[in-house]
């Protein structure tokens, strides 16, 4: 079906690195007619890590996942999944995938859907029963095994989809907005399942626009906007290791305020000043400088930036 790219840009060393990764993309691009869905996506997902792929709606997240599982063909660039170019049939045996907008055959029972996917995944027939029972148990659908899928709610379909993605102990599971239709209990269950997958050495590629979800389960993440990665790293790297400090200050002359910008990215809200990218070691120096400038310091609050703050800031920086 989807042929691996023959336009290999990686040198042998890079290719060897790509082989050791769960996912590696190099300048991956996808255009639908004149619409650019993904432009120059370069990222790596390590084995046995939970990787968050975060971005606003329309950023190209689903396009990226579709390229990785072979549902669409890249316009340019290349991608490797579990050490082989995307589209490799044998590699797909080691993949689990939960699409964002999907449906199973409504006329089938939940256990039959799982049985079909066991067959398509090439699992030995002797293992099907245990695989189906295990998947149903994990996603909390054991009681509904013999019910037709057409009677399932959206949330139950999503649970079933997650069960399908877990069949055969895949080495990489790609989840595209896995909790979009789930209630809080379902979301909690999904987080637990992701943690279990990580514990057993499965890499998880979590595509989401839900910041709290990504914040809670991901080891590393990439923030994507308009088809490009705008930031990537561990949570602390993304949030900024230096953090931020918020101070309540009065009596500071305008010239003094201007000179304080040397300490970091300053947000001036009148009495409240927020310094981003400031090392904690420099906080006493900052306070001293404010006092020297004639200011009076009433409060100094280290501020832990949330992913939401950082995410919005990154998007804002892109717009500038």
């Amino acid at each position, binding site marked *: *079906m989807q042929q691996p790219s023959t336009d290999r840009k990686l040198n042998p060393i890079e290719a060897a690195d790509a082989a050791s990764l769960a996912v590696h993309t190099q300048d991956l691009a996808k255009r*639908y007619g004149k619409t650019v869905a993904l432009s120059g996506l370069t990222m790596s997902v390590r084995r046995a890590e939970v990787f968050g792929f975060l971005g606003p709606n329309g950023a190209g997240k689903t396009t990226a996942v*579709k390229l990785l*599982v*072979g*549902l*669409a*063909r890249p316009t340019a660039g290349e991608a490797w999944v579990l050490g082989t170019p995307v589209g490799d*049939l*044998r590699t*797909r*045996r080691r*993949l689990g*995938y939960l*699409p964002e*907008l*999907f*449906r*199973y*055959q409504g*006329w*089938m029972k939940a256990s039959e859907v799982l049985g*079909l*996917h066991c*067959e*398509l*995944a*090439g699992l030995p027939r002797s293992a099907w029963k245990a695989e189906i029972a295990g998947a149903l148990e994990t996603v909390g659908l054991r009681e509904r095994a013999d019910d037709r899928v057409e009677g399932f709610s959206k949330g139950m379909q999503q649970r079933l*989809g997650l069960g*399908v993605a877990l069949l055969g102990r895949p080495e990489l599971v790609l989840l595209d907005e896995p909790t979009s239709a789930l209630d809080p209990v379902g979301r909690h269950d999904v987080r637990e399942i992701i943690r279990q997958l990580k514990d057993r050495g499965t890499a998880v590629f979590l595509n989401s626009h839900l910041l709290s979800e990504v914040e809670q389960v991901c080891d590393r993440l990439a923030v994507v906007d308009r088809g490009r990665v705008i930031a990537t790293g561990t949570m602390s790297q993304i949030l900024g290791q230096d953090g931020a400090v918020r101070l309540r200050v009065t009596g500071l002359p305008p010239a003094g305020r201007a000179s304080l910008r040397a300490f970091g990215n300053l947000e001036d809200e009148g009495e409240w000043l927020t310094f981003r990218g400031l090392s904690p070691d420099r906080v006493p120096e900052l306070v001293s400088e404010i006092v020297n400038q004639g200011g009076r310091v009433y409060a100094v609050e280290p501020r832990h930036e949330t992913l939401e703050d950082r995410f919005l800031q990154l998007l804002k920086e892109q717009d500038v």
Partner: protein
Amino acid sequence: MHVLTIARLTVLEASRRKLLLALALLTLVVIVLTSWGFSRLPTMKGVTSAEVRVAASQLTILVAFMFSGVLALGSTLVAAPSIASDIESGIALAILPRPIRRSEVLMGKWLGLAVLIALYAALSGVLEMIGIRWATGYLPPNPTAALSFVAAEGIVLMTLALLLSTRLAPMTGGVIALVLFFVGWIGGIALAIGQTFANDTIINIGVGSRLLIPTDGLWHGAIFYLEPSDFLAAAQAAGRARAGNPFFADAALPLPYLLWIAAWILIVLVLANWSFARRDL
């Protein structure tokens, strides 16, 4: 072998969605009613057994025409959404990332639908023939060959609808396939008229339409095997006036044309696979 898995799934879906049951019940009703109608022929006053035989043979062709129409329309309606609705609904998104080639999905669906068409043609045809035989004592000269051509007509249209289904929405693909089916039928009539009046232009249009859409050609192949030899001889003796009849065939389909139909199915399948393999989902 994923082709067989998908074929089995296609047949199972038709069964679970009650398509087979609905078709079976309606077909039984039609067979019972037509058999009763046939049984009235010998009871008419002043009708000789030879006239009953001629009437039965002509009515058999009309009944076969009805069945071929049902099969053609049914094949289109089932095949046109087969790939397209899987893509629209998201079923394809769940299936295709598995270690399965798109060609296996497409060929599996083709095989499953072809089996359904062949089964329907065989079962409904055999039951109808039994009914006609019981009612009139008449049996066409080669019902097996006729039923094979009727089934092939359905398979040709199904293959075309499947190709359209790889790119077009179910309704659009279905409508286009049906329009082409009727264009082919009209093309067949044009060919008959062209032959009657020895008009080369009209003949060429008719031949062209039979090559592009071979459903009408196959229908005429079926007619030939439903015509008793004495009727055929009398009709041929009547000359070109009979040739304009769309329910008459004066010769079996030539081998090159049969080979072309086989090649046509192959070409359309290759195109369908090519089209589906290149579609971004």
